[in-house]
């Protein structure tokens, strides 16, 4: 290759680039989507939230002309990936798919550079993760009330497993203990699977973890009560705390898709419409159900209200926790 001609063509390219830069941004909205959409998942591949993204990408194949690419950016309990989307170009090609509850509680617990409501707008809710109170199968406590009685008799003596402080399972567990004036020693594990293994091996007395974690573990783990107002779509024989009339705070985690705040309204509306269609496909529903979690679609306004309610509901627990820290 001739050196001069290379530089000439490079110079032409750069000039052309600069000229079309402003025009390009304007043109994109008309033809959205014209290139692959990056769906950032702030957790490792293979996890529960990742499964939603993969199912979404599979469901999108028949509906959208461009591919949906799942990008795993784990770190800081999901905040690393969230921040990368918040600062990305707001053109609708970089979206965040995350566990809304964990995201919200993490930003409330730690000094965080991103805020769920300020830096993002909701595209839609596509799923729901719920947590449940579980005990080992050989546990002497056969119901939530028996466990509460034991906790009252031995304050601070019993131990419970969870997937890490800052996750919504932990906050839900803490909120349950607070609402019933109970104390117990928590043992944090790194992720849901190690916590479940510790519970299965009866290394702790009880635990709070995702309801889907109990599937296939019937011999080793008994879920006692679900942290929700309504029963789970798949594990239908597990009663809710509400049915049992046990005080609790409804902390779950909607799986949400979000876009940077400045994304154009018509692009978000278009994306929302796609997501509504995809979540209605059988491909998506089947893939999600096999994971043991639930598909649940909701409009942006609905999910935003849900998250705001959850923030209000969990503020007392969080203040109590952060107060304890300082």
């Amino acid at each position: 290759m001739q050196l001069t001609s290379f530089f000439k063509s490079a110079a032409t390219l750069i000039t052309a680039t600069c000229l079309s830069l402003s025009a390009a941004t304007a043109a994109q909205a008309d033809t959205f989507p014209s290139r692959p959409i990056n769906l950032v998942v702030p957790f490792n591949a293979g996890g529960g939230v990742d499964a939603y993204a993969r199912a979404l990408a599979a469901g999108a194949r028949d509906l959208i002309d461009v591919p949906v690419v799942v990008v795993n950016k784990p770190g800081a309990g999901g905040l690393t990936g969230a921040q990368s989307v918040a600062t990305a170009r707001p053109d609708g090609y970089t979206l965040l798919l995350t566990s809304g509850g964990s995201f919200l509680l993490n930003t409330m617990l730690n000094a965080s550079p991103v805020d769920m409501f300020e830096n993002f707008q909701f595209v839609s809710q596509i799923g729901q993760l719920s947590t449940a109170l579980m005990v080992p199968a050989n546990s002497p406590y056969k119901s939530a009330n028996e466990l509460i009685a034991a906790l009252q008799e031995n304050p601070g003596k019993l131990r419970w497993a969870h997937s890490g402080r800052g996750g919504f399972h932990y906050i839900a567990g803490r909120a349950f203990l607070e609402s019933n004036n109970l104390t117990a020693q928590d043992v944090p594990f790194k992720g849901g699977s190690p916590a479940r293994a510790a519970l299965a091996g009866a290394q702790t007395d009880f635990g709070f973890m995702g309801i889907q974690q109990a599937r296939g573990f019937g011999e080793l783990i008994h879920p006692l009560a679900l942290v929700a107002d309504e029963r789970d779509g798949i594990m239908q024989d597990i009663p809710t705390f509400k049915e049992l009339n046990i005080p609790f705070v409804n902390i779950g985690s909607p799986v949400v898709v979000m876009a940077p705040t400045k994304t154009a309204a018509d692009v978000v509306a278009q994306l929302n419409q796609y997501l509504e269609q995809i979540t209605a496909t059988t491909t998506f529903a089947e893939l999600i159900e096999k994971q043991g979690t639930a598909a649940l679609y909701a409009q942006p306004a609905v999910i935003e209200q849900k998250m705001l309610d959850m923030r209000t509901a969990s503020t007392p627990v969080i203040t109590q926790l952060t107060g304890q820290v300082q």
Partner: protein
Amino acid sequence: MSRGSYCWTGILAGVIGLIALWASTGIPDPVAGEIGAKLFPQAVSAALILISTLLLWNARRLPASDAPRDWMPQSSTLHVLLLATLGLTYVGLIEALGYALATLIASTAVFLLFGHRRPQRLLLMAVLATAAYYLCFFVGLGVYDPPGSVLDIRALLSN
């Protein structure tokens, strides 16, 4: 084993140890009955300061080496620093221009630093290397190509 390398290691370890000890005072105290988050950082920092004192103490006893600067070679250090600067610049370039363009620039520079001088050959190698990495990682393995914050070629090419 020269006195110089002991001195420098001692000073470096001491400074890092002191910074770490200072930083670990900010970690919240443990709840009763727990080891807490503070114990390990403080213990390790303190141990590092202890080691640093021992290193400096031992350096005193060591004979001064014949070549006093044998632990820090001279002219070649400049080249290493150049290479390191190139590395840091490269990260900035990826952020600003995306992977492909940044790699084209950085690979030209690194081949230049390693002594390739003929322009045609240099450019050819840079283009080939960039193409190879791009095809292998971003096309083949589907790694996420970060859009450049200053100039995003892919967005422009697709229009």
